[in-house]
């Protein structure tokens, strides 16, 4: 029967490699018809509108799942927001089988703009690296359904000082070389695709066009197994949820939440153009030039932060 047991792995499931990924997710008001609620003046009633996962985060989660299925490993969902966002993380567990969840939640964090959010999230990632394990890849979605700024990902990345690849539609990782190869849309154009390479650890911002592919039977069997295992886990989500407040994150309240947010939303009309829709080339953190570009991109917000 030892014979029989050796079949269980049979070399189909990759061994020896372990990719640790974090997916940043965000809760947004459920804009679907019937769910969304506006007050008499036509303002969104957040309290009465259910929270769902930012639809674009789904693609980030799919990318993380693909990485785990192909290479083995661990995926943690991470979100910053009120305690109710735990449901968003639970949803992530149900749909793409994250292993556990981290919620950065504190009253001090309320009303953070993208900049303060980025600072907080990077503190979350730092804390994760210190207390849990080293991270190989951070996945983020593209634009949130409510804020629509598309800045959080790049900004968090900048704070971490890692390379970033945006508009990713397909992904391949070489765990031995510790590199990531991605197909990405150039200027968000579906017809123009380039392939770029980045060293790990790095940030990946997925495009809604991202499609996971599972072309071997063992990958599909792994996905099916994860789905079955997750059903139990998701039902008992609190067991797998860690909540960190500003003290856990070692954050100075002056730099976070409303106080740390340089952006004042005067009207919701002018949606800032997402940085990733600009010329977003692959950046190598070791090459000083590349980082310079990121800094340039982020400069306006960083300057405001200093005001």
């Amino acid at each position: 029967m030892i014979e029989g047991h050796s079949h269980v792995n049979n070399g189909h499931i990759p061994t020896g490699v372990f990719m640790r990924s974090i997916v940043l997710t965000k809760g947004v008001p459920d804009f679907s018809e019937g769910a969304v609620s506006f007050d008499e003046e036509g303002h969104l009633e957040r309290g009465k509108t259910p929270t769902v996962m930012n639809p674009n985060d789904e693609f980030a989660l799919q990318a993380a799942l693909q990485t785990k299925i192909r290479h083995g490993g661990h995926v943690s969902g991470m979100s910053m927001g009120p305690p109710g966002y735990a449901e968003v993380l639970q949803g992530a567990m149900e749909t793409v089988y994250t292993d556990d969840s981290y919620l950065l939640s504190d009253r001090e964090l309320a009303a953070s703009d993208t900049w303060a959010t980025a600072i907080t999230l990077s503190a979350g990632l730092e804390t994760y690296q210190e207390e849990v394990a080293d991270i190989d890849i951070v996945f983020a979605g593209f634009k949130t359904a409510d804020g629509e700024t598309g800045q959080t990902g790049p900004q968090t990345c900048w704070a971490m000082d890692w390379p970033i690849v945006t508009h990713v539609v397909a992904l391949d990782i070489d765990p031995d070389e510790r590199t990531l190869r991605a197909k990405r849309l150039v200027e968000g154009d579906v017809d123009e695709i380039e392939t770029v390479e980045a060293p790990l650890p790095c940030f990946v911002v997925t495009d809604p066009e991202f499609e996971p592919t599972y072309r071997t039977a063992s990958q599909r069997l792994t996905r099916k197994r994860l789905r079955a295992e997750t059903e139990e886990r998701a039902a008992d989500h609190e067991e797998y949820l860690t909540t960190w407040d500003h003290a856990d994150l070692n954050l100075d309240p002056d730099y976070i939440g409303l106080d740390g947010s340089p952006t004042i939303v005067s009207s919701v009309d002018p949606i800032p153009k997402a940085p990733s829709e600009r010329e977003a080339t692959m950046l190598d953190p070791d090459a000083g030039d590349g980082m310079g570009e990121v800094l340039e991109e982020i400069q306006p917000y960083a300057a405001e932060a200093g005001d």
Partner: protein
Amino acid sequence: MTDEYEHYEAIVVGCGPGGAAAAARLADHGVETLVLERGTEAGSKNVSGGLIYGEESAPYTLADLFDGFREEATERPVTDYYIHNVAGNKVKTYDLTDLHEHDTDWCDAVLRREMDSWLERRVHEKTSETGGGVLTNVRVNGLLEDDGEIVGVTCDELEPITADLIVAADGVNSELAREAGLMDWEEPEEWFQGVKAVVDVDPDAIDDRFDIGSDEGAAHLFSGDLFDDVRGGGFLYTNEDSLSIGTVFHLDSLLEREAEPHELLDALLTHPLLAGWFGNEYDEREYAAKLVPDSKKAAHREPYRDRLVLVGDAAGQMQAQGPIIKGMNHAVTAGALAADAFAVTRGNADPAAAGRRYTKLLEDSGTMAKLRPRRYDLARTVGEREAVTSAVERVLESPLGSLAVGNPIADRLLERAYNSPLLVSMLPDTKTGYVSLPTLIAEEHGKTIHWESEIEPPTLEERIGDLTYDTDVGNPHIELLDQSLDASGAAVTACPVSAEDFGGGCYRSEAVKTNGTEETLVSLDTQPCVECGTCAVVADTEWEHPRGGKGVEYREG
């Protein structure tokens, strides 16, 4: 060369009863087994009339292989069994319980979506324990060969996979059996076409109208003159809260009569005999169709090549024992035997060792003798020859014929003859057995029904509209190679979702003017296709199944 491919010890293609039995048995033997099923869930592609037999003489039944099968995956056990001989409004009914119970340990009505999906879950559990599992939405599209030897499979959705054993349990119109050169789709004589409706009826009403308890079930067969002289018959089986009603006809006879399958089904549905069972209400849940091989002619005597073995419908192992249809049970036996054959020949250097052993097990277990009785080969040469048939027909039509059939002794003898498995299996497939004799019996001995049926079955258009499809837009799975009426015209009537003068089906014929001459051409739209396989045999096509998860999705089956 094949080293670079993913490898499993065994691959089973298809998760119907044959594939499920093979995979479960392989897992019992500790074999690492991958099951590939093209449907979005097992059963979503499958149709049967619905009686699954546990034969006393069979080496395996589903109840042996899967604990709880009968309790959890089937509808009602069959406790009453009748055949109705019909001539117009006259009906003569025989109790067929003796024939039904011959060699029967148990027999339950089933709906295939529920049954097969239940099996799929059990099979996944079992095969997961030995390093494999079931994958749905994956269509195997060919055999992987190395130097002319079959070594694996290729799929639409996955990279090629190699295996030491490949079980083609992919049902009727097996693309694998065809590619291996073991089966062809040429002769209409080798097939039946089955068409079926699942009708919603309240469980209490079923108990009441069929006079059965809630844990009992009824089976009714129909033959005689209600099918426009097409050779074949009808059936009605009780489920928990629905009825399965259908027809099974010889494909060559359908073609000869240019009959519309849905109209023949409607002839049964609207016969006054059935009116009482519907209680004047008719709510059709699903319309379905599929080809059925005739094992007497099509069962392959050596169903293997290299590492490939065929089981079930893929190997033509579908036995029409007179009016009793046994396909699922034989698929189960064959699947389990193929697995056993692999287990004992494991490690043998000859890739065909398992196939050879499997063939021997089919013989030794008596399965092949049931499927393809040698005595039938003999009876057929005499009985089916046109001259003899018409001679017998003339006798039946003569006053002498009705005298012979019509006397009271004949009545008793006939009932006994119908209940004789030997006679029934020898009944040659002629008009005599299916139409003339039953009609005469009804005329001579039948009671006349004095009411009308008010049932109005849905139109073909409504039936298609009620089905669920996930159309593979821009990627039709059937290509019409020859548009001429001669080559492909038969499909217009024989396709169960097409009809003469109906534009919304798969096949239609139209007059086309070219250079002043008018020609009738056949055209094809695969959108409403229910993947029955008929046109693969009767028209000139390039015929494949749709990609994994695409096409029609049966909810009842």
